[in-house]
């Protein structure tokens, strides 16, 4: 029971900030490298004028989520990948940054960097979860 709680805690911490789940499991080097790489990708993406996509409907009802998925499937997928970097996603909604600059020639590159950072962070958080469960070293 305690192992499951620890695993869920490291998953949540890892989702919120890259590498924090590993640091909570005393894997300091690995956590540091994850944080450095993923955060660097996100910062580079933001400097390139990339966009952090957000959920566009008002409300989280199943009907609205389905509507968002079918009307804007690519935006919905981009939102899911950007959600991977939890803390920055929340901050970007609170302080309105990462709105994207379409005029920049690097807009697409930046958006890809941000989406890549989020997707990698999902894998990193799941890795921390597996380590906490004892499935991995």
């Amino acid at each position: 029971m305690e192992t499951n709680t620890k695993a869920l805690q490291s998953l949540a911490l890892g989702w919120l900030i890259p590498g924090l789940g590993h640091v909570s499991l005393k894997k300091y080097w690995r956590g540091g490298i994850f944080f450095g790489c993923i955060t660097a990708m996100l910062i580079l993406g933001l400097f390139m004028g990339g966009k952090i996509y957000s959920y566009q409907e008002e409300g989280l009802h199943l009907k609205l989520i389905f509507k968002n998925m079918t009307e804007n499937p690519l935006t919905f997928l981009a939102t899911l990948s950007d959600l991977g970097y939890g803390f920055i996603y929340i901050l970007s909604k609170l302080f309105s940054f990462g709105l994207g600059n379409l005029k920049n020639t690097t807009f697409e590159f930046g958006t890809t960097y941000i989406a890549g950072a989020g997707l990698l962070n999902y894998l990193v958080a799941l890795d921390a979860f597996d380590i906490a469960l004892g499935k991995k070293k």
Partner: protein
Amino acid sequence: MILYAAFVCVVLALIRKDERKAQIKYALSLFVLMVFGAIIFGWFMYLFV
């Protein structure tokens, strides 16, 4: 693109492999595959311009 590939390779190597030597080998091979794969795919797309 090269920088992006480098970051992705480092993270994936640390996730997929446990031993240091295997991590370096995996990261390097993935990096070469991503960079040269992108260049080859770029040339392939150029055929349809």
